[in-house]
């Protein structure tokens, strides 16, 4: 027995020996650890960030064999070899098919639908305008991305970060620019976690003390019949208007109908608990695993790194921040318009909740409002624009998909 040779082979085959073959992977491991710290210690959106960070860690550990991004990178759905993935892929490759086939975002939307109460929005339909206004960031970021030289399909995927809606961002990006799924998903979820830091300074800068102290009248209760008819009506209307958005809106409203119908309590309970939790695990880990530091380019990119660590990733992170900021500006701006039009009956702070990060953006409106008037309860008022923002970002994604199909981006 050649003990020396065995030990040498053990070293050669170990990840330690290969750790610095591509320094980019080592850097990604450090980034994954930082994200784990933010999720666990600082509590930044831990439900998602923990899984994303750990997926990133697994995918960048050399020779782990769990994720092979080269099986997906730069390939459209029709070019992916499913047989190869099933035979040679790791567990994350197989789970990642749920992202590529857009199964997870739709199931997440079903869960969100089952957890969403449209009551505040139905009681005050005008709040939907704020949900539309807060999509401003989507289009501002789209224009800026074009200015920075991104192709329009990538620019559209970057823009949707401004919708502050993770599943929608993943849905659109996996269709238009799957190569950029990792950085876009991470930017979207990271900024959603940072909403309590991003939004308040903008809200304060754009409103006066008097506006921030505005007390709104209590919303009137809505009948159960209205709550049941609403998801059905929205599905018919939105899918007829933008068929591309049918998977998202359809699943979202199905989940909501489970909740509101009152006749499928078990399904509603499963959707808003077990189902969404399971899918969140799969989605977060596999999206994180797409962030591989080094991926060898092929074809035109032969010899180049087409992995996560690139200038375009940094630009995407920057543009994502701008998208969130512009969306907040759009919401608050229209909130101010509504304040003026209604003679001071609408607190402009609820406009920022039009970005669809539910319910975090609504909580920010509540917290900022309560800071200036402790007896002011804006939470339920802010939930209206907040859930309208979910519909708004889905419509924006549907529009971009539709344009992409016409202009040959897909």
């Amino acid at each position: 027995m050649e003990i020396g040779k065995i030990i040498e082979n053990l070293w050669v085959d170990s990840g330690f020996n290969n750790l610095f073959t591509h320094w980019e992977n080592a850097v990604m491991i450090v980034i994954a650890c930082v994200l784990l710290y933010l999720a666990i210690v600082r509590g930044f959106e831990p439900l998602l960030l923990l899984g994303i960070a750990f997926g990133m860690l697994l995918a960048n550990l050399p020779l782990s064999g769990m994720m092979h991004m080269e099986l997906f990178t730069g390939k459209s759905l029709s070019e992916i070899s499913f047989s190869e993935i099933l035979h040679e892929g790791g567990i994350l490759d197989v789970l990642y098919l749920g992202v590529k086939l857009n199964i997870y975002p739709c199931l997440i939307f079903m869960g969100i639908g089952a957890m969403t109460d449209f009551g505040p929005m139905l009681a005050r339909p005008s709040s939907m305008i704020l949900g539309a206004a807060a999509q401003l960031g989507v289009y501002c970021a789209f224009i800026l991305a074009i200015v920075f030289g991104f192709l329009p399909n990538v620019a559209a995927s970057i823009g949707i970060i401004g919708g502050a809606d993770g599943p929608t961002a993943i849905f659109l990006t996996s269709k238009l620019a799957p190569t950029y799924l990792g950085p876009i998903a991470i930017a979207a979820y990271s900024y959603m976690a940072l909403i309590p830091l991003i939004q308040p300074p903008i809200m304060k800068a754009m409103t006066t003390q008097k506006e921030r102290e505005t007390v709104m009248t209590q919303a009137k209760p809505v009948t159960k019949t209205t709550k049941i008819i609403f998801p059905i009506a929205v599905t018919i209307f939105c899918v007829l208007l933008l068929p591309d958005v049918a998977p998202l809106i359809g699943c979202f409203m199905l989940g909501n109908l489970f909740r509101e119908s009152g006749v499928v309590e078990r399904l509603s309970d499963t959707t808003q608990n077990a189902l969404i939790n399971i899918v969140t695990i799969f989605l977060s880990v596999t999206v994180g695993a797409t962030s591989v530091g080094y991926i060898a380019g092929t074809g035109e990119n032969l010899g180049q790194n087409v992995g996560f660590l690139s200038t375009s990733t940094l630009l995407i992170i920057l543009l994502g921040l701008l998208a969130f900021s512009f969306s907040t500006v759009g919401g608050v701006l229209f909130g101010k318009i509504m304040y003026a039009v209604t003679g001071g009956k609408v607190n402009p702070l609820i406009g920022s909740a039009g970005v669809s990060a539910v319910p975090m953006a609504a909580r920010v409106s509540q917290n900022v409002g309560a800071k200036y008037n402790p007896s002011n309860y804006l939470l339920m008022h802010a939930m209206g624009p907040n859930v309208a923002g979910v519909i708004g970002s889905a419509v924006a994604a549907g529009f971009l998909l539709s344009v992409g199909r016409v202009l040959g981006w897909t």
Partner: protein
Amino acid sequence: MLFLAIEPISVPEAFLLSLVGFAVVFIALMALIAVIKCINALAGGVKKETLAPAGVPAAVSAPAVPASGGTGSAKVPAPGSLGDIDLYTVDDQTAAMLMAIVADDLKAPLNTLRFTSIKEVK
């Protein structure tokens, strides 16, 4: 690579697309407002209750009567309140906790519920 065939677009074109896209979102949500108003009209969507202007959810402010049963004649309901709640051998904190539990159990926002009395069953 997959996207080599995709044509870049100019900034004015991007601006125009954005303008149309933003308009589509607005039109879609405005149309949904109209849909909601139709549903409300057909299904009696918003309950015809007259509520006083307030920022405080009704149920939160409801336990205005002390547990001791003291009823001051000059008592003014809290803003947004749907009225008083009668508490029998239950203190304010327990009443608030019970209302929160009921709201959670019913999966209904607290401010959409109206509690008239809470009494300990012995």
